[in-house]
């Protein structure tokens, strides 16, 4: 009931916005002789048939449990055989996604692959028919001030269209509230974008998709961001071909030249940090060095927004094939050969350990950076359930399990094996050695048997309750 009220309210306010937009457009019609209006209508008509409303059921790990949540998002078909592009944050780890096409048919699409770094996901509709699809434009040619249309399902209101202009063509948002976008800038627009618009197209007046609406500034008025379609094209192509995009890794964290000098003539990019034990670290590259060339091709980033293109350039290097970097240290230039390795996944595989009541994941380099984990050893506890064995035994979210039963934990798979054995054998006590920040600690897990025996009553009550609900 409450939901209906809310959405009605939203609809009304949306209606108000649309009518005021018409009013505005009425003015331009006067001066443009209806050209703009007809352009908007034409552009809209080209894209709307390929617009998709998405209803994924997404697994999420929260407070030590794996749960499923229903998400609302947008997407668009990019080929006649039914490939759909949307945001990674819309589909997450779901395998199948319910899609509502523009003709209101409901069809399940499969998730082909996702890329959390650029927030892009590709889905595939069954190839039983020819689907209408969008034309992708060239986002390198967009200009600030250019008129654009945003389409999608704001707050679940499918097939909505809003309009505005491009406010800025290359907005750099490297790390905004934990969302990392190192490989692309964003197109900023004042076309209304709301929750639910995620994954929908940003379209120019020619009816070409130039971006994927993916973020907005909460608390601001009409400050939305779209991933440039040229960034997406490359990722999508890779996902369709390989199910994922492979990137190469040198271990360099880059900074713009402006961080160290105001002199516009100084060329290169600052190496702010070199990850421990990375390929670059092993060949002696250190923070403070200036990267000037990659395979004799010059690189230059004067401002932050120049960085994504260089990061992409480095990520495209062939994995395992030697590359020559020209490095400036002090006044000296040096050519250093280095072999790129595989770029770390954004997040590690996450699993719920329901018997003990916690969730854990493998540790990736990216997680070390974001979550301040000191090393890649062990597994990361992402959540602990209240009242669970893990909680009672003193395990905390954020702990890293280094050892189980005095054996080193290298990854989740190894941990799962020993865990499984312990559960199956009903081992009464299991010893963990955990890292909490820079401190280490022993945690003794009292295995399931004891605790279940202690509280048989509550277990039965819970089960009864769940049956009455159904």
């Amino acid at each position: 009931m409450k939901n209906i009220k809310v959405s009605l309210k939203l609809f009304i306010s949306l209606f108000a916005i649309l009518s005021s937009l018409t009013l505005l457009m009425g003015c331009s019609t006067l001066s443009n002789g209806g050209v703009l209006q007809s352009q908007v209508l034409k552009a809209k008509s080209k894209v709307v048939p390929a617009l998709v409303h998405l209803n994924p059921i997404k697994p999420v790990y929260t407070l030590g449990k794996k749960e499923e949540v229903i998400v609302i998002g947008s997407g668009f078909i990019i080929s006649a055989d039914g490939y759909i592009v949307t945001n990674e944050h819309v589909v997450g780890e779901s395998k199948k996604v319910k899609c509502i096409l523009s003709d209101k048919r409901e069809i399940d699409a499969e998730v082909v692959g996702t890329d959390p770094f650029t927030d892009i996901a590709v889905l595939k509709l069954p190839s039983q028919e020819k689907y209408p699809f969008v034309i992708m434009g060239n986002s390198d040619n967009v200009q600030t001030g250019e008129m654009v249309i945003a389409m999608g399902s704001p707050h679940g209101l499918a097939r909505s269209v809003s309009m505005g202009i491009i406010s800025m063509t290359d907005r750099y948002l490297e790390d905004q509230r934990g969302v990392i976008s190192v490989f692309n800038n964003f197109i900023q627009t004042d076309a209304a974008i709301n929750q639910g618009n995620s994954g929908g197209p940003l379209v120019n007046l020619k009816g070409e998709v130039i971006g994927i609406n993916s973020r907005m500034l909460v608390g601001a008025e009409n400050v939305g961001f779209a991933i440039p379609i040229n960034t997406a094209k490359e990722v999508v192509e890779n996902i369709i071909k390989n199910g994922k995009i492979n990137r190469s890794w040198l271990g360099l964290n880059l900074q713009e030249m402006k961080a160290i000098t105001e002199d516009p003539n100084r060329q290169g990019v600052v190496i702010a940090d070199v990850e421990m034990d990375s390929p670059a670290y092993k060949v002696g590259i250190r923070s403070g060095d200036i990267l000037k060339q990659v395979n004799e091709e010059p690189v230059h980033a004067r401002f932050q927004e120049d960085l994504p293109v260089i990061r992409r350039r480095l990520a495209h290097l062939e994995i395992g094939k030697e590359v020559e970097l020209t490095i400036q240290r002090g006044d000296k230039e040096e050519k250093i050969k280095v072999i790129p390795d595989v770029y770390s996944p954004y997040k590690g595989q996450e699993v719920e350990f329901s018997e003990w009541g916690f969730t854990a994941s493998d540790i990736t380099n990216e997680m070390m950076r974001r979550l301040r984990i000191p090393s890649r050893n062990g597994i990361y506890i992402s959540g602990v359930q209240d009242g669970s064995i893990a909680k009672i035994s003193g395990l905390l979210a954020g702990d890293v399990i280094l050892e189980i039963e005095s054996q080193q934990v290298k990854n989740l798979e190894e941990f799962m094996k020993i865990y499984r054995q312990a559960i199956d054998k009903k081992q009464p006590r299991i010893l963990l050695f955990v890292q909490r920040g820079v401190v280490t600690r022993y945690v003794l897990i009292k295995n399931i048997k004891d605790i279940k025996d202690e509280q048989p009553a509550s277990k039965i009550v819970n089960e009864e309750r769940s049956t009455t609900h159904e």
Partner: protein
Amino acid sequence: MNSFIIISTLLIQNIWGTFSSAQLETIYNQITPSIALVQYSSEVTNQVTGEVTRRDGNALGLIVSADGLVMVPGFVELENISSFNFRVRLNIKGEEKEFPALKLRKPDDLNVMFLKIDNEENIKFPYAQFTEDSLKIGSTVTMVGILGETVDYARCITTAHIGAILEKPRLTYCLDENVRLGFVGAPVINEQGNIVGVVGFDLSKAEGGEVYTRSGHPLIYQYSLFKKYIQNPPAVQYQDEEQGAWLGVITQPLTDDFAEYWDLPKEGGLIVATIVNPSPASECGLKIGDIITNFNGTPIKAKYETDVTSFTKLVREAGVGNRVKIEILRDKKPMTLTALLQTRPRKSSEAEEFEWESVGITVREITPDMRIALSIDETVQGVLVYRVKSGSPAQISRISRGFIIQAIGDIPVRSIDEFKNVVTIIQEKKPKEITFFAKMGNISGFFRIQPRWAE
């Protein structure tokens, strides 16, 4: 100067377990001369922002010796509160008198403080004389405290009951109702008319409470808990005091569960969980997983978290530079190690600070406890940005609290001394621009700053 002593036995006997109004009046008249109003100033450090604010405070002071030893509540001095400028105000024969007082080192096993009145004139003060007398559940007690400023800090008498007796980990008594702030530190008189203790509050762990954490409930600290401090008052507290000896381990108690798991006798002990490197512990060959069973001749029988702090105290008092024998169990086998104890590193609250005005930052040395609290690895050297002045060059360059400055220009900065040295050199040259290399979490970067040099 008149001198009068509070008589410890008031010669009243309560058969019904209450005090008559006449008895209360007698107690009031006898006790109030020893009750002082203590006024002081404190510096309070906000533990989140590091901002220091100054404020004035009042507390009840109870004179406990004729030469002017004053007992005050423990809230006067906490981990983040440092107080000074103590004045003890007494009402002697209707005349208000104020005496300056020095603060004595706060006991580490009880949340009370002692002051010593600067008694140049050798005045004999009226004082409260305590008796070690037991208290029974349900028995009535009376207390004399101080009311607020609006009622001129009038002395006030009230009664309450012993609501609970706490047997473990040490004997204390709980009052059956809450008390006003002005009654914290108030003398407690039992039905026999003896002064048997004072009203006290334990510190919570968050307030730096270590040994006993029965925070939030008004307790009676019976005489036996602080008798030793009245007989042998703590030393005057000076700045930069030595912190005692240090081993460099973080331990956890050998609970029965752990003992059972490792197939060890359930006799307690301390499991070595973390070793600071370098430290006396790492140098003497102590390893993670060792179980300490005896330290310097004292058996270690720790079974609960609260026992860990007693061990810290034991180490602290073992003497810097002393060689101590540590008996351990390693893989169930007994072993003896010898550690050379060093001076305990400074705590974060005593960390050296340095303000660089031209840039607008205050930095701090990184002490071992800060490394633990802020998860700063041993390999990370530098100084911690503690405060960034609003509108300063540092703020313009997006330097924030929590950054670790590791280099200025090309010169590495590994400690606060190195930082100060570099600043001295830079101050002379007054360059238009300087560059910091700083670490934020697991990410590093360069920051250009344009200092505002003083004219």
